[in-house]
């Protein structure tokens, strides 16, 4: 059994939006029967074929780390959660389409994850407020997933879709809207499946294949900063 390279993707979102069901659906192609509250973090693995269908096809492990909890947790919970945020290669932000607050909280979630991740490279956080520039040059790919699509009444669907489109523009990310109790949404060949595999490809590329030379120097710069901060401890 050859061991493949791995890529780590965080799945973030408020309590009860359906992260655990989503992860289960992605990894086992089955619907999660009895979802219960996630304590701490639960990991699941999916084998993804990078560049499927081309001669350069290679399989990678994608680890989906499903972190439980809410943005308003006590700081002790937050600092414990930070343990899971090390060396993240991609982030999936999950929000509930029937609950506006969960989409608003996504900004805080992404800030929490990115702040832990970015060592002092000069990304200044303006007291937690949202700053679009941060996401523009953000090296970590984001994917936005809206769940409980089936629970929106027909007449409100357009408003909700417009709102989520706006949100995905904010994050400079792709978006998928689905219902986690229905495996049909990720059937092979559907647009959702295409978006998903494109996202995973992007994550793998950013991790293993550095394209631009300026990105290469950015990487090594980061490493040097990391080293320095460790030294001062």
């Amino acid at each position, binding site marked *: *059994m050859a061991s493949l390279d791995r890529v780590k993707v965080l799945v973030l979102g408020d309590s009860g939006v359906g992260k655990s069901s989503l992860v289960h659906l992605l*990894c086992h192609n089955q619907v999660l029967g009895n979802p219960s509250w996630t304590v701490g973090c639960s*990991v699941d693995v*999916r084998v993804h074929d990078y560049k499927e269908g081309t001669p350069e096809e290679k399989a990678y492990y994608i680890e989906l780390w499903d972190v439980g909890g*809410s943005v308003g947790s006590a700081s*002790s*919970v937050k*600092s414990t959660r930070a343990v899971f945020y090390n060396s993240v290669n991609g982030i999936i932000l999950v929000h509930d389409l029937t609950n506006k607050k969960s989409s608003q909280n996504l900004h805080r979630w992404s800030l929490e994850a990115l702040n832990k991740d970015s060592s002092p490279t000069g990304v200044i956080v303006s007291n937690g407020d949202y700053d679009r520039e941060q996401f523009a040059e953000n090296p970590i790919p984001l994917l936005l997933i809206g769940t409980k699509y089936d629970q929106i009444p027909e007449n409100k669907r357009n408003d909700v879709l417009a709102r989520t489109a706006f949100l995905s523009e904010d994050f400079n990310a792709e978006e998928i809207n689905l219902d986690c109790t229905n495996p049909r949404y990720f059937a092979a060949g559907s647009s959702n499946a295409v978006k998903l595999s494109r996202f995973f490809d992007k994550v793998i590329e950013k991790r293993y294949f550095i394209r631009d030379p300026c990105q290469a120097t950015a990487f090594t710069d980061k490493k040097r900063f990391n080293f320095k901060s460790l030294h001062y401890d």
Partner: protein
Amino acid sequence: VRQYVVQVVFSITFAFSCTMFELIIFEILGTLSTASRYFHWKLNLYVILLVLIFVVPFYIGYFVVSNIRLLQRQRLLFACVVWFTFMYFFWKLGDPFPILSPKHGILSIEQLISRVGVIGVTLMALLSGFGAVNCPYTYMSYFLRNVTDSDILALERRLQQTMDMIVSKKKRIAMTRRQMYQRGEDQSKQTGFWGIIKSVTSSPSASENLSLIQQEVDALEELSRQLFLETVDLQATKERIEYSKTFQGKYFNVLGYFFSIYCVWKIFMATINIVFDRVGKTDPVTRGIEITVNYLGIQFDVKFWSQHISFILVGIIIVTSIRGLLITLTKFFYAISSSKSSNVIVLVLAQIMGMYFVSSVLLIRMSMPLEYRTIVTEVLGELQFNFYHRWFDVIFLVSALSSILFLYLAHKQAPEKHMTP
């Protein structure tokens, strides 16, 4: 919470409960004429009882029933059924307690209040018993265990290692399953008989392997959850230690000492009340002032001071209990809310809050000097107040003792795990 009705009901309950407290304060202050106060009391009581006993349980039943998918069709019918069972139990509740007096009819206010009072008093005593013990425990830094950074780091490292182990095992499962899937595809091309025999011989070992690994993964996941919770605990303790070193922390620490003395005194009083089987006639403030006057011989105008001090004390008690209750309720609400059951939870909370307030009115009578008790006694009719006080003391003592036991066990268990020598 999206339903308009739920919001309205909750706010009504809250508003009327607060009005009751305002009325008490007006009592002491002496504003407004007696007649109008009396009228307001009556009105308030009627409305609150109406809401607490009729409206809220009905809606609770309604929402609970609509959550259960089977009974969607005849929601109203089932809600009525639930409501009737509630009324039945509510009535039965009155039997073992000595509160029925033969003079009053069935639907009189006294009956209803008495029952609501019983439930509310039980609740209050439980909560305050636990709170009385928990408060000194959390505030006093004496109880804080020493947590160093290295403890936390060590625990975090263990957590990371466990997660890595889980990940590697899951990778094996995924890989095995993928290979099985691919082999399954290949096998479908093979012709019938031979293909079947091959599948029989090759797959059992793989699936056995899988289930074994799956069990290990489950055990590891349980371990990771435990480690996570312990780490959170340690972080919280460390933060509290840091907080206690600051100025604010020290201030709260001192407050904590005072408060714990008060709690201990309350427990002591409750024990005495039960053991000696008496109910205090005079309130603690007046008695305290009398004692000081007698012992120290200072010229105090007892009446004047007792009025003001008791007013302040009652105000403090009211404010802190409202605040404490609301904070606990909000925390509770955030912890267990989900979009399905949030309506039910809000209604249950409204019910609890209403009962809590009604019974605290009953009990506050204990802390008020004699002349103010008259109107409360007048309005609420001939309730056996003594019984309530006794009942409160009993439950308070029971809950305080059990929470002491519980905290002691929890405290003993924790430090043995991760103290570095």
